[in-house]
C-alpha cells in the first residue's frame, strides 16, 4: 500500500518536475554557459574564458552588487523590526482584527508595484502632494526626499512588507503560549522571554520572511530606478543593461551567476538551519 502511494506520488509530481526542468533549470544552464564565453558573443561556439567575470572587478560592477546587497540587508533588518510587533499582534493578540490587516496588506498587492512606486513619486516630489500643499499653505518649500539611498530603502521596505509580515506571523503563531508563560513563571522578564523563547521558536518564520525579503530586494530594480532616479545603480539594473543596450550576454550572464550563487548559498544555509516542515505544514506521519 505504502509502495503504491509512493509510486503515485512520484507519478503526480512528474508534470511539475518537467515544467521546472524546462522553464527554470534550463535557462539557468544557458546563463551559466554564456557566463564563461568571451565578451559580446551571441553563440556558444567559442572557446570559454573568464573575461566576463573579470569585468566584475575591472569595471566596478562589484559596486552595484554591494549596493544591492547592502540595501537589501538594511531593508530586511528594518522590515523585521517593524513587522515583528505587528506580526505578533496578528498571531497572538488581534484575533478577528487580524483578518482586516491581512486583507488590507493583500489588497495593496493587487496594484502593480511600478504604479504604487510612481504614486510615491507624485506624493514626495518637489511640487508633489506633500511639498506642494505645504508650500501653498506656508509659502516655504523644502527639498524632495526622492532620488536618494534612504528613499530606495523605504521603497524596498514598502514593497516587500507582505513578504516579511506573513511568514513572521506564521512563525510567531507556532510559539506555544504555555512555553512563554512557563518562562515568565520561572523568572524570565519580557526581554528574556523574547530572546530565549520567542525568537528561537519563531525562527522558521523569521528565516523564511528574511530570505524572501532579502532575495527579492537584492534583485529589485524598480525602487532604485523610480524612487532613486538611478542615483545608485543596482546589480539588477546592470544585468538588464548588459542584456539589452549593452548587447553583452556573457557579461549579463556572469553578473547573474554571481547574484544567483550568493543568493543560493544564503538560501540553502538559512533553510538548512530551520525545520521548514514546521511552517509549511507537517508531513503526514
Amino acid at each position: 500500500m505504502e509502495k503504491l502511494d509512493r509510486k503515485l506520488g512520484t507519478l503526480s509530481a512528474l508534470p511539475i518536475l518537467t515544467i521546472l526542468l524546462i522553464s527554470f533549470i534550463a535557462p539557468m544552464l544557458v546563463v551559466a554557459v554564456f557566463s564563461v564565453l568571451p565578451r559580446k558573443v551571441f553563440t556558444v561556439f567559442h572557446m570559454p574564458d573568464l573575461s566576463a567575470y573579470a569585468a566584475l572587478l575591472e569595471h566596478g560592477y562589484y559596486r552595484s552588487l554591494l549596493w544591492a546587497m547592502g540595501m537589501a540587508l538594511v531593508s530586511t533588518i528594518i522590515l523585521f523590526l517593524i513587522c515583528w510587533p505587528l506580526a505578533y499582534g496578528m498571531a497572538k493578540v488581534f484575533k478577528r482584527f487580524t483578518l482586516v490587516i491581512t486583507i488590507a496588506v493583500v489588497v495593496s498587492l493587487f496594484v502593480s508595484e511600478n504604479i504604487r512606486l510612481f504614486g510615491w513619486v507624485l506624493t514626495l516630489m518637489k511640487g508633489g502632494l506633500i511639498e506642494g500643499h505645504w508650500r501653498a499653505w506656508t509659502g516655504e518649500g523644502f527639498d524632495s526626499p526622492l532620488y536618494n539611498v534612504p528613499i530606495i530603502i523605504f521603497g524596498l521596505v514598502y514593497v516587500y512588507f507582505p513578504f516579511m509580515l506573513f511568514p513572521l506571523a506564521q512563525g510567531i503563531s507556532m510559539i506555544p503560549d504555555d512555553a512563554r508563560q512557563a518562562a515568565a513563571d520561572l523568572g524570565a522578564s519580557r526581554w528574556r522571554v523574547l530572546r530565549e523563547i520567542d525568537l528561537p521558536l519563531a525562527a522558521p518564520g523569521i528565516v523564511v520572511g528574511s530570505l524572501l525579503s532579502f532575495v527579492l530586494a537584492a534583485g529589485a530594480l524598480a525602487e532604485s530606478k523610480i524612487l532613486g532616479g538611478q542615483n545608485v545603480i543596482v546589480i539588477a539594473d546592470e544585468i538588464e543593461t548588459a542584456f539589452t543596450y549593452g548587447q553583452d550576454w556573457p557579461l549579463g550572464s556572469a553578473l547573474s551567476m554571481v547574484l544567483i550563487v550568493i543568493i543560493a548559498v544564503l538560501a540553502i544555509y538559512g533553510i538548512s538551519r530551520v525545520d521548514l516542515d514546521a511552517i509549511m505544514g507537517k508531513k503526514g506521519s
Partner: protein
Amino acid sequence: MSSEPILQLENIVKRFDNFTAVNGINLDIQEGEFLTIVGPSGSGKSTLIRLLVGMDEVTEGTIKLRGQRIEHTPANKRPTCMVFQSLALFPHMTVGQNIEFPLKIRGEGSDKRRARTMELLKLLRLPESYYSRNVAQCSGGERQRVALARALAFDPEILFFDEPLSALDYRLRKTLEKELKELHERTGKTFVYITHSLEEAMVMSDRIAIMNAGQFVQIAVADDIYARPVSRFVAEFMGEVNLFDVEGTTSGELHGNGVEIHINGQADEFGISLSTGEMGVLMVRPEFVRFISSGETSDFVVRGILRAEYALGSRMQYEVETADGSKLTVENLREDRYRGDIGDSVVLGWDIESTHMIRE
C-alpha cells in the same frame, strides 16, 4: 514561625466580563503542606491557580506570601512556580537546558547550573545521559519528570501543579502520584495541586479543598471529606455513594423518601438524628453496604432486587433496585462476593458507624 501560614488568600474574586470564575476564596496554606484543590471542569480551579502564580490578576481580594501582599506582583517576580498541565517544556531546548533555564535566568554560571541539573536528574531518577537529550525524544513519564526538575531548579517557595498527570495513562499516573508524594516528603516544599481526579487527591494530599462554581465547598483531610461530606455535591463528587432523602419524624425515627429504611441503632449517638420535619440526606458508601442473610441483623436494612454485577478487578460492584425503583450500589471485595444470581431478592444492611447525615 511554623504556625504562620505560608500563603493566605482573602476573599479572592476573579471576574471575566459578566462571568465570575472565582467567587470569594479564603484559604490558609501551611508551610510544607500538600494541598489539593479538586473540582469538576469549569469549577474555577484552573483560574484560581493562575491567580496564585500571577498569570492573571485578581479582581478583588488579597494574596499574602509570608505576610507580604503579592496579588499585583507579576509571575516572573513571584518566588513561586507551576508545573503546567501541558508541562510547557521548551521544545527547542534539551532536557538539560530546560532544567537549567531558571538558573540561567538567575545568572548562575554554567558549571554550577550543570551540577545542580545533574543533582535534579538524580533526584527524579533520570539517567545523566538525558542531559543532552531532546525533550521530544522523552516518554510521557520522563517529560513529566523533566518539568518537575525544572520547577525544582527554580527552588520555589510554593510549587503549584495544574493537573500535570491528566494526559498520562492509568498505570503511569499511579506510579507518578506516589513519586510525587515521596518527592514532597523528600523536599519538604509546599505543594499546591489541582486536579479533577479525586483518587489523585486522596493518594497524595494532606488536605483537600473541594471547589465548585468558584467557591470552596469543603476543606478537610481526605478521610474527613470522604466519610463526612458537607453536601450532596461533595458526597457524589467523592466517588460512588448511596444517598437517601430523609425526614425526621415525631417518634425520632427517620422517614425515608420512598425507600423503607429500618433503623435498629441509636441515631442520636452517631449524630445522624433529625428533629421533627427536618430534611436531610442519609449517606452510605457502597463498600460499607453488605448482603445480609436471614437471621443476621444490621443497624440499617433495605430490601431490593439484584439487577447487575460488575467486576472491578479486586472488587465487585452490584446494583440493587429497591421497591420504589431507586438504585443502590454495593461494593464487596472479590473474596466476599455475593453467591447468587441476578434477579434475586436481597436484603442489604450497613452499620450506623458508616452512616453520615448531610444537612444542607
